[in-house]
């Protein structure tokens, strides 16, 4: 984070003026001056997204295109499979998949979305990692792909049960899209890339729009009485309730996809015995974790009391004494649950649902229970 950086050195997204005009409280985030909340506040913004629809500026994230030099999308997919443990070849045109760049130790360099746009792959990566990701792609894939950084595009997420009806007024195809469908569509007459995805656990869309049209599109969406602007504060509480990992917190270069409980994101074709098993960085360690289990695991935690248990809190097996068994990696108050929720890492032996643990908060050990994630049921349109 760049919390101490001079405001002037912070980058601005194409929607910066809009945030300021809407009364956004601007804070430094991943090198950008971003709205953490609007006048409504985190709680109302969170609940509005769960009940109606929230508009998020996620333009700080990186957007990249991988274009195969041969013209064959399968060549680009096979090339990307050298960097991620996911089955990229099997992503059908018009579909998207969640993936991770891994390192030689099996750790996660970044998590990302990969869409097949027919003649090229479209990638969305995290803001803090985007320069490193682009360099990583150039270093390893330049022989097969032309790598374009799509820095002249904004990214708007529209999330919540009213997202479909709001977007349908501007994009006739929106209602027919299913979860993780992705492709070029016109929205309000603007040529956009639309995916039915997001990171809140709600049904919704992410819309990649040329920077010059971004404010017009955002204002048009905000004209809908169901749509409210939402800041990073509520984005974080929404993704936490959805049990989704935040890069740099719940996953990083020290965690493998298996430790992070992201096995679901690694298709059988890339696992031991699969058609294209291994072949990605850290495959030996990651496949060993698949085959024999990992010694620790990401878990969800519910607290008995109302005190939030935050990132960094140490976890213990007992109410007093003993060495810490793990650590909270994300935690806070879940507005939809009206209760604290957290996630963290513990030895696999302590990861079973209903296991009782304790978190040290201000010198006290607060009782917690290992709980299923997502904490709030997702509403994806599958």
């Amino acid at each position: 984070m760049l919390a101490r950086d001079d405001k002037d050195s912070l980058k601005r997204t194409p929607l910066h003026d809009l945030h300021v005009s809407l009364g956004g409280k601007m804070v430094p985030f991943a090198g950008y001056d971003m709205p953490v909340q609007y006048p409504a506040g985190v709680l109302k913004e969170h609940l509005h997204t769960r009940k109606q629809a929230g508009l998020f500026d996620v333009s700080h994230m990186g957007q990249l295109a991988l274009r195969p030099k041969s013209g064959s999308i399968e060549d680009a997919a096979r090339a990307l499979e050298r960097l991620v443990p996911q089955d990229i070849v099997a992503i059908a045109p018009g579909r998207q998949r969640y993936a991770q760049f891994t390192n030689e130790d099996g750790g996660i360099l970044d998590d990302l979305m990969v869409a097949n746009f027919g003649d090229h792959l479209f990638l969305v990566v995290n803001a803090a990692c985007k320069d490193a990701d682009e360099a990583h792609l150039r270093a390893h894939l330049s022989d097969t792909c032309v790598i374009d950084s799509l820095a002249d595009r904004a990214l708007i997420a529209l999330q919540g049960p009213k997202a479909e009806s709001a977007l349908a007024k501007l994009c006739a195809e929106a209602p027919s899209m299913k979860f993780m469908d992705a492709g070029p569509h016109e929205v309000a007459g603007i040529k956009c890339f639309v995916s039915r995805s997001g990171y809140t656990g709600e049904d919704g869309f992410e819309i990649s729009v040329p920077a010059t049209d971004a404010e017009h599109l955002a204002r048009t969406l905000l004209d809908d009485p169901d749509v409210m602007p939402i800041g990073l504060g509520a984005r974080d509480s929404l993704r936490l309730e959805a049990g989704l990992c935040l890069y740099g917190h719940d996953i990083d270069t020290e965690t493998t996809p298996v430790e992070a409980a992201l096995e679901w994101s690694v298709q059988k074709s890339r696992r031991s015995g699969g058609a294209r098993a291994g072949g990605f960085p850290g495959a030996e360690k990651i496949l060993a974790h698949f085959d024999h289990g990992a010694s620790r695991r990401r878990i969800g935690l519910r607290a008995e009391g109302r005190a939030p248990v935050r990132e960094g809190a140490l976890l213990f097996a007992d109410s007093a004494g003993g060495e810490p068994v793990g650590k909270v990696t994300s935690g806070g108050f879940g507005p939809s649950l009206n209760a604290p929720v957290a996630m963290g890492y513990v030895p696999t032996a302590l990861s079973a649902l209903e296991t009782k643990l304790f978190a040290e908060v201000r010198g006290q050990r607060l009782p917690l229970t290992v709980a299923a994630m997502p904490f709030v049921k997702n509403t994806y349109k599958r």
Partner: protein
Amino acid sequence: MTTTLYTSDHEWLAIDGDVATVGITDYAQSQLGDVVFVELPKVGRTLKKAEAAAVVESVKAASDVYAPISGEVLETNDALAAEPALVNSDAQAAAWFFKIRIADKSELGGLMDEAAYKAHTA
């Protein structure tokens, strides 16, 4: 006759004789955002001036509330456990945190009156 004074850390204290009622200012709650949890000191605890006495948690972060003055905690506001959002809606009245018996009135000397506090937060 009650006098209200303020600290530079955004606590207020309403002084009535040798008892002060303590809370956080309306300015502080507006900066914190939605309050979801308040941890109060135990009745009977003796606080030293500037010691962490209570904790306010918003959706995003925890913030300490410091004792604006030394003394014994006489009473705490149970309503905050049931309804932490009172801090947002009525910071300087219904959402008081605790009452303290003032141990040393000379400690009041360093605190601000309302005009000075307004200038401090301007």
